[in-house]
């Protein structure tokens, strides 16, 4: 069929996979040519990961045909996929912290060669593609970007002819992402095909030459990202016009509502990040964005701000002028602090609980308990109000937490935390893994809360989001927080440099603000 009669590297036809209650993939067809960088686009739950798992042999399709270089194939397990020449870099790495890079790679390959022989090959690959990895280092010393390079080297050692990348840049600084794109382009020029999964449309425009868009398990379109606009691709993904979030009011200098003064704290986890001399000031009506690559102390900072971990000094954290460093979460909530955690099920909400009970989780101190008895009528009404205001898709207030999609659960959690009119809201990765429509609703809610006079602190890895909603951006790197920069006076590049540990570029305009 090809002009030069070369069969496509991979072609899928009519792939269908059903689970008990849902159809994850329905009649999906997809063709990737040799050396092509192909984007797989879709919102959460669109069926991207199921499709990728089918290609990698983790999941078997109920129906449909997989052709590899023209021949029909069965891929019963990942070993079979690797034998065909399919390599995959997962979003969550599977590396042992306490082993060296070479040892980890040897485990993944099931290699028969010695570590010394493997080290030579690792150095050769990393030199050829400019993927700096040091085979003798222990993984727990490595940054997330370095870990990803280890995973990529591990794939490349098997000379793949199709490399699958699942949301690879979500853990990278913009500069690291550029480096990754160079590697992928190099691979493509050598004839290796790439299937690139992402929801970051600007990346896809920069990198990919073809795209398949999934929605609700079905292919809703193919496009050439070099030609289509981001808006067109986004509308294909969500199947409608893109709602726009907007900042409702100009900002004014308010009173400080959350202050952190030179807070240092050892992490209580084996490979955690220690906080060093962190200071920040959040004012009424202001959104402060904390940027940074995951694992640079975000978890630790949020725990010490929310009260799940206590500070050594009470004055280290001040909420509304009250020294709160040694107060627990309940007491800090009483001071007007509310918190949207990173994990939804299991932390922000309980999978087995109804929405009514999940509504009670953090607001029990706000008049929903009388004489030790829960006022179920009142809390049910609170849950109903959240569902209505945030358009949470659920079968009702009795729906279990586990029955909601990630985006709807997050809207419910955001609604619960905002519903008590907090003076200070901490939001950890508020739109991570949430579909576009819900993400916009959540950002809008955060901006509305700030406009109403509350301070909002947002920790996010999504720079585009931080630049969209924050008044100030500070960067967390190795447990140190940079001075905040006025968003409109800084650039993605400057923030990106700080995320990689660069010299404090562009920090000067905001020093006065930090004091």
């Amino acid at each position, binding site marked *: 069929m090809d002009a030069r009669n070369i069969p496509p590297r991979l072609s899928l036809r009519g792939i269908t996979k059903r689970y008990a209650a849902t159809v994850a993939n329905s009649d999906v067809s997809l063709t990737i040519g040799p050396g092509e960088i192909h984007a797989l686009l879709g919102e959460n739950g669109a069926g991207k990961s199921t499709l990728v798992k089918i290609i990698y042999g983790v999941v078997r399709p109920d129906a449909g045909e997989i052709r590899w270089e023209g021949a029909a194939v069965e891929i019963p397990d990942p070993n079979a996929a690797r034998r065909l020449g399919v390599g995959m870099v997962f979003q969550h790495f599977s590396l042992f912290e306490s082993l060296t890079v070479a040892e980890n790679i040897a485990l993944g390959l099931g290699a028969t060669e010695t570590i010394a022989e493997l080290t030579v090959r690792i150095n050769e690959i990393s030199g050829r593609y400019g993927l700096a990895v040091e085979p003798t280092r222990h993984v727990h010393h490595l940054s997330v970007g370095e870990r990803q390079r280890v995973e990529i080297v591990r794939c490349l050692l098997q000379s793949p002819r199709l490399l699958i990348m699942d949301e690879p840049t979500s853990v990278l600084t913009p500069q690291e992402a550029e480096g990754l794109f160079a590697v992928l382009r190099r691979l493509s020029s050598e004839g290796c095909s790439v299937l690139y999964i992402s929801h970051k449309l600007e990346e896809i425009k920069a990198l990919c030459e073809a795209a398949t868009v999934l929605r609700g398990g079905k292919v809703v379109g193919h496009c050439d990202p070099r030609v289509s606009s981001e808006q067109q691709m986004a509308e294909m993904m969500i199947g409608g016009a893109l709602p726009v979030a907007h900042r409702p009011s100009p900002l004014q200098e308010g009173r400080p509502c959350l202050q952190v003064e030179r807070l240092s704290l050892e992490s209580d986890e084996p490979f955690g990040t220690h906080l060093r001399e962190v200071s920040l000031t959040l004012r009424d009506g202001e959104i402060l964005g904390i940027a940074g690559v995951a694992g640079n102390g975000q978890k630790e900072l949020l725990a010490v701000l929310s009260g799940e971990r206590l500070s050594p000094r009470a004055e280290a954290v001040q909420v509304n002028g009250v020294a709160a460093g040694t107060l627990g979460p309940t007491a800090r909530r009483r001071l007007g602090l509310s918190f949207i955690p990173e994990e939804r099920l299991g932390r922000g*909400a*309980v999978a087995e609980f109804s929405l009514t009970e999940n509504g009670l989780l953090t607001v029990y101190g706000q008049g929903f308990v009388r004489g030790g008895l829960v006022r179920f009528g009142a809390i049910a009404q609170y849950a109903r109000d959240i569902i209505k205001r945030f358009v949470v898709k659920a079968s009702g207030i009795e729906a279990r937490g586990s029955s909601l999609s990630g985006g709807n659960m997050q809207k419910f959690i955001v609604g619960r935390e905002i519903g008590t009119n907090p003076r200070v809201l901490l939001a950890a990765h508020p739109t991570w893994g949430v579909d576009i429509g819900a993400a916009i609703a959540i950002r809008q809610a955060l901006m509305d809360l700030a406009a109403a006079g509350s301070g909002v602190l947002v920790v996010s890895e999504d720079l585009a989001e931080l630049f969209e909603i924050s008044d100030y951006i500070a960067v967390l790197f190795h447990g140190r927080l940079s001075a905040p920069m006025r968003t409109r006076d800084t650039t993605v590049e400057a923030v990106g440099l700080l995320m990689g540990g660069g010299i404090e570029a562009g920090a000067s305009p905001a020093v006065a603000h930090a004091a």
Partner: protein
Amino acid sequence: MRLSLEARARPARIMTWASPLIAAVCSVIGVSILFAVLGRAPLQALYVLFVAPLETLDSLAELALKATPLLLCAVGIAIGCRADVWNIGAEGQFTVGAIAGGGVALACGGNDTWWVLPLMILAGIAGGMVWAGIAALLKTRFNAHEILTTLMLTYISIQLLGYLVHGPWKDPNGYSFPQTRQFADDAMLPMLFEGTRLHIGALFALASVPLGSILLGRTLMGFRIRTVGAAPAAARYAGFSRNGIVWFCLLLSGGMAGLAGICEVAGPDGQLTPIISPGYGFAAIIVAFLGRLNPIGILFSSALMALLYLGGEGLQVSMQLPIAVTGTVQGMLLFFLLAADVLINYRVRLRPSRSATAAGAARHA
């Protein structure tokens, strides 16, 4: 074809209640096989085990008498389990409750005073709480797991009881039998029905069902307990202290087991002996799980377990089967229940074997 388990989209509600029934039916089948192997007529043995104890008013009263300590211990255990606090040592708290309350009876009984009985009951509850409180202290201070500590404390309590009834508390007129004096009349629980041995302790046990339900379902404390058990990270996030919950659950279940203990010795027994419980505290763990950790379910499962005890005694008397058979039947019941529980979250599917799928797919290609 092969059998495979497929995850259900959501837990099957009906299975939550059907699974104990399936377990009961499987147990009956298993028990029948056991009887046949032991050379007894299965039907007759099943009759002795399950039906005979229900035939007379007197035996029904005995059933309620046996269910009383099971119910009290099991409701306490279940509330703890909902918070992921595993009090395996209700037997020990039961024993210490009996010792503490019995000590009050021996020291203050016989003066015809109204306060002896209430004081005994309070002492029994306090004894159980102290014993479980040791485990709570070890857990919250040193992170020692309560499964181990409560179990080890049980053996200590049994040695303590043995020491007391063989030594300082031994009845001087008891012909050297290891037992205390009989409690005075004012130190005995009043009977509910004349002519039976059923005492007012049964009312405490009955009351624990609605009180336990309200605690778990309607109060903030119950909400805390369930959150800590279902999602510890969510509990930390919500600001619920795990240590507080550990203390509450262990003190509550310890107190309830202690109450069961004093009711047992101040009810039918009327004295302390080296063996005051046929393993009520341990059987209550089975009862709690059979009843789905739900006080109302436990009301039924405790009755079933009491039936097994009575029927087991019947087997020993009328069919000369060893007491170990009762334990075996209890064990089977728990085993089948846990196995049947898989059906709540999974469905069994018959599907073609893997090679058949591959062949079909190849044909399709």
